[in-house]
Every structure is written in C-alpha cells, then in structure tokens.
C-alpha cells in the first residue's frame, strides 16, 4: 500500500524538525553562557537538512546530515570583575543570536505542525479506504 510510506516520509520530517527544535533550545539556553564545556565560549549550532530517499524516487524524506557550529566571533563584554575575563578585562560570551533563534524556533514548530497534519490526513484517508464497500 503506497500511502503507508507517507508516514515514513512525514515522520522523518517530524523527527528532523524536533532535532532542530532541540538545537534551538540548546542555543537559547546558552545565549548568555560565558564558558562552554571545553572552557571556551559556547558556539551556536545549526542543523543541516538533507533529502533522504525512501525507496521510490517520488517519496523523499528528510534527515539531519550534520550539526554545524557557527564560526562568528562571540560577543565581547568589558567586565574586569568576571573570573573569565581576559588580560584586557573582556569576557567572551556565546555567539548565539537570540532573535535568529526565535525565528528558527517558530519556523521549526510550524513545519512540525504541517507534517503532523499530513500524517493525520493520511490516516483519515487510509481509514476511509478500509471502510470501502461497507
């Protein structure tokens, strides 16, 4: 039954978008972080989506091919009393752009909703097909 692969396609998209939301959450949580796990300032992460073939060439799912760290320099704040301050008294914060992340979050949640709706519609259609001839 070819309609069943809609669930594969949409669920791959849903999990990819969930991963994107996860990354956004971690970026937003670290927006003011001075030091990351390695002692350096946290770097914003972004997911990279890639089309994943699902059997036939008309069913294309999504997968997260990589998670990239942003290489833009972090915000420098003059705060000599901070223990993480360098010789000149500057503290390097994370390079997360909170506005960008909020936009990213809204986009991810909309895409998530779209794909859930697609699965709901496919489910309704399949149930109707099961009732055929009754």
């Amino acid at each position: 039954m070819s309609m069943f692969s809609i669930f594969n396609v949409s669920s791959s998209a849903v999990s990819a978008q969930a991963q994107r939301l996860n990354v956004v959450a971690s970026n937003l949580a670290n927006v003011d972080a001075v030091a990351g796990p390695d002692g350096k300032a946290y770097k914003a992460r972004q997911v990279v989506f890639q089309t994943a073939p699902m059997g036939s060439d008309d069913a294309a799912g999504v997968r997260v091919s990589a998670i990239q760290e942003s290489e833009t320099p972090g915000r420098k704040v003059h705060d000599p009393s901070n223990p993480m301050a360098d010789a000149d008294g500057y503290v390097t914060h994370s390079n997360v752009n909170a506005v960008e992340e909020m936009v990213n979050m809204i986009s991810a949640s909309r895409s998530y909703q779209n794909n859930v709706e697609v699965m709901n519609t496919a489910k309704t259609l399949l149930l109707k097909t099961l009732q055929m001839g009754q």
Partner: protein
Amino acid sequence: MLDKMTNRLDFQGTALLLRAERQRLLASNIANADTPGYVARDMKFAEALSAATGGSQGKGAMSVSQEGRSGDYGTSAPGHIPLPGFSERSTLGYAVQTQPALDNNTVDLDRERAAFMDNAVRYEATLRFINGNAKTMLSAIQGQ
C-alpha cells in the same frame, strides 16, 4: 458481461492509486519544505490517469484529455527507443518556483498544503464513487 460490470471499477481503482501516489508526492514536498536545494515535484493528474488507463476507460466514465505526451516514454519520433525506467515517471514534473529562496528550495508551502487538501478530498470522492458503483452492482445482482 462481467467485464462490462467491472470496467468502471477498474478505472476508478486506477484513479484511486494515482491519487494515493500524488498524496505521497505532496507529503514528500511538505516534509522537505526546509531542505536546502530540494526541488518540489508534482504530477499532471489528467496525463497520468490517461497514461495509466491507456486511454481505454469504459463508456460513461469520465473523459480524460489526451493532449500532451502521454505514454511516449521520452521519445519524440517513432524510431526512438524508449528510455528505460521512463514509463511511469514520465508524468512527474518539477514545480515552478513562485518566490525564489536563497537556499534554492522550490517548495511553496501554501501551494503544497492546498494541493494536499485538494487531493485528499478528491481521494475521498473517488472512494465514494467506488462505493456507489459497488452498491449499484450489488443491487443489480440481487434484483431487489
């Protein structure tokens, strides 16, 4: 005799299969709405249906336009050898970009969602046609 009875059902069954396939195609487009470089696909339903039924739908069934390259399998002259793997997919096309995106993604989410809903309704309509046909046949057989 039996052939005449099931002819129309065959046509509607093919239509239902194609609707399911288009539904899957649109689901792929919606799933890839954020993938960089993804090119949205769609099918011309009338062409796909006339190619799938070979233009031999039963009498009284919907008339389907025969224009376009239905079933020519990538050939443009009678002497050409048809391309392998070109048979069914020949009706698949690429959606035209309405608003160019920086990441070369051509999915127009509004259009895809509208098409998805439209296709879902038409799928259900085809289901009802099949149900109605089956009921008509059954009551004809029972003669009551």
